[in-house]
């Protein structure tokens, strides 16, 4: 079973990379390198250390932004889920944030916060926060009424009910929101490097394109996807570990 799933993953990677290689050889466009060329460039970027230096730069706004989004987002999501009034007051902001064309907002951010770290963190937050907030509030609101009633009938205080019933009931969906938020944050971090100031991995992409070194450009893009996939897998493992044994099934009668 396990062996087969590994095999299938390998096969799907083979298909994707194989078609990339073929498309690069035709070539679809003179600016589209083959898979092998891109991997060679990837290797070069790795060994000469440029990739490493670039990621230190890129991860800064990403980590700060994701941390802010997670703590603030879960907090706000909880408040929205628990209070109707807060919901009416705050929810629209996040719905707008989720649908707003980010590219159009970036010049505005740059005007207010300049081209430094602050603006980039903002972009990451705008990308990551809404999905975390909306997932958290939805999960809180969907806690089965019967177990909340149970908590009240056994004399749980409001705080007891929140900490011992609502939060654990909502945590798998909150975690799923966190995962979506992190991947959105990745996109935000790269976008901010492309749109605000070319630093980090964004700089490799912009610079390689300007000197027509397309393999390096695609190597950089590939590295982003690779990192995102690895990171999300790690999160998934943590999730599995946290919620193992207690599947979330609300069985009755």
């Amino acid at each position: 079973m396990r062996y087969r799933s590994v095999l299938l993953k390998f096969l799907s990677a083979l298909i994707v990379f194989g078609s990339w290689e073929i498309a690069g050889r035709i070539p679809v466009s003179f600016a589209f390198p083959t898979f092998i060329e891109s991997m060679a460039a990837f290797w070069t970027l790795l060994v000469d250390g440029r990739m490493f230096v670039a990621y230190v730069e890129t991860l800064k706004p990403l980590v700060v932004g994701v941390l802010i989004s997670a703590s603030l987002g879960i907090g706000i999501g909880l408040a929205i889920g628990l209070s109707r009034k807060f919901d009416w007051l705050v929810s629209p902001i996040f719905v707008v944030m989720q649908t707003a064309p980010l590219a159009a907002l970036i010049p505005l951010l740059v005007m207010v916060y300049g081209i430094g770290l602050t603006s980039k963190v903002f972009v990451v937050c705008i990308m990551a926060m809404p999905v975390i907030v909306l997932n958290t509030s939805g999960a809180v609101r969907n806690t089965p009424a019967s177990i909340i009633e149970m908590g009240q009938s056994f004399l749980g205080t409001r705080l007891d009910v929140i900490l011992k019933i609502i939060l654990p009931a909502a945590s798998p969906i909150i975690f799923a929101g966190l995962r979506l938020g992190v991947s959105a944050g990745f996109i935000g971090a790269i976008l901010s490097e492309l749109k605000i100031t070319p630093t980090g991995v964004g700089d490799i992409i912009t610079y390689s394109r300007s000197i027509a070194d397309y393999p390096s450009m695609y190597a950089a893009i590939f590295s982003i996807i690779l990192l995102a996939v690895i990171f999300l897998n790690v999160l998934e493992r943590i999730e599995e570990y946290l919620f193992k044994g207690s599947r979330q099934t609300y069985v009755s009668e």
Partner: protein
Amino acid sequence: MNDKTSDIENAVSVHNVYKNYGDVEALRDLSLDFPRGQLTSLLGPSGCGKTTLLKIIAGLLRANSGEITVNGQPVAGPGPDRAFVFQDFALLPWANVIRNVAFGLELRGVDRSEREAIAEKYIGDVGLKGFEKSYPHELSGGMRQRVGLARALSVDSQVLLMDEPFSAVDEQTRRKFQEDLLKLVKNESKTFIFVTHSIEEAVYVSDQVAILLPRPSRVSEIIRPEGFRHKDANSIRRDPEYLDIVDRIWASLRTYVE
């Protein structure tokens, strides 16, 4: 037959209670007394408002009007004098059996070793020994129901509100539980309010059976099966009075079953 009821103090009293859910009228002018130390069954067609009445007594729902008192005090919300066995069990899916059973005590601030010792005892009483570390999804419906039962017993309240507590257990276990319940009523000075769909069960375990009308619900009849209470568990089911009362209740309920 029931001259002594008048001088028994009532643990719970419900007077002229009305309850609407929006346009749905669930209870209309319902009054019923629950004598202390006795078991009262609520018997009535599905959807007639039995759960609603129980939740109003528990303080989980507010009546639109009417008076509900527990030990003479008006009900303002849930209290330590009442414990609830939920129709849909209401277990925490992420908590194992022992934590679920001890949860009522956990919320009351009893420390861990003490509450787990108490929970352990009631887990044994409901026949779940060995399943302390299992999670609800690993249990059958009847076993889950017993977890809910043990949780309510472990907080040691004076009034037990039981919403169809034996509905999901098998017939053998059910008969055993009915006998256990009779012992519990006899040995402990608790007041039981018991919802069931089974006429036989109601007559077998109850000191009084309240028959409810279909929605909007009122009490249509109160029957006190007393004649055979002193008999031993097995001969009750063959007692002529027992069989007679079962027939009488069926006759009055069948008019609502189309």
